[in-house]
């Protein structure tokens, strides 16, 4: 078997293992996409995590966040969506690395996640959701003003 073919076979086998795995088993994004966790800029981070597919704005994927955060160390964020999403990721430009968290959504789950993040400075927060099946990417973003930086700053 020449090298070109071998690579192709390897990739196919890899895809075959990964695809059914996403539905049944836990997915650790840190292991599957280690690069995405080291990237600084949101745009590049989205590409590293989800590929080059186009982003769509949608009313069905929204998140709540304060316009002005007094304490950058703890900014409450609520993500809501009525879409059937496979995963949701949160990116921001304020910190040395853009990716804050990635949710992998179980089938039939209610998407309403509450959590808190840290931000060093005023920046745009972007969330990206990937639809189950079609793989369409939806996005929403907001600018959050931070008066006191988190991250020990």
């Amino acid at each position: 078997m020449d090298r070109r073919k071998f690579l192709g076979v390897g990739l196919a086998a890899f895809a075959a293992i990964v695809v059914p795995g996403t539905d049944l088993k836990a997915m650790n994004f840190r292991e599957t996409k280690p690069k995405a966790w080291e990237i600084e800029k949101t745009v590049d981070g989205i590409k590293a995590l989800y590929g080059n597919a186009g982003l769509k704005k949608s009313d069905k994927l929204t998140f709540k966040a304060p316009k002005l955060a007094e304490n950058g160390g703890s900014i409450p964020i609520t993500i809501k969506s009525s879409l059937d999403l496979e995963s949701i990721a949160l990116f921001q430009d304020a910190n040395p690395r853009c990716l804050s968290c990635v949710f992998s959504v179980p089938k039939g789950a209610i998407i309403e996640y509450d959590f808190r993040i840290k931000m060093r400075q005023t920046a745009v927060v972007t969330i990206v959701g990937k639809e189950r099946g079609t793989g369409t990417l939806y996005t929403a973003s907001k600018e959050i003003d931070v008066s006191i930086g988190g991250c020990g700053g």
Partner: protein
Amino acid sequence: MAKKMKIKAKEKKGIVKVKAMFTSLMADKEEAVKKGIKASYIKYIVAKVNDVIVYEVTMSGFMSENPLIKFKFNGKKGDKIVFTTIDNNGKEQTGKKKIK
């Protein structure tokens, strides 16, 4: 530092509301250097009911200290919800709670 997990789970009309708080400094590399401590943050949280995943998240150190999470799922009373967290050093912790 006490390593504890606080979990609350309540059922209402078939929907279970869960609140959970984990103890972690959530200090990523840069912050750890500033404070002169070792980097320590939870990187992975998973919640299961009857071995079915209901909540799963991979995080970086940019979540706030002692992360508090809230979520909802379809479930029923009496089941047990099991949380597992893994931190950046690979240390695992589990916590259980019965759904009220």
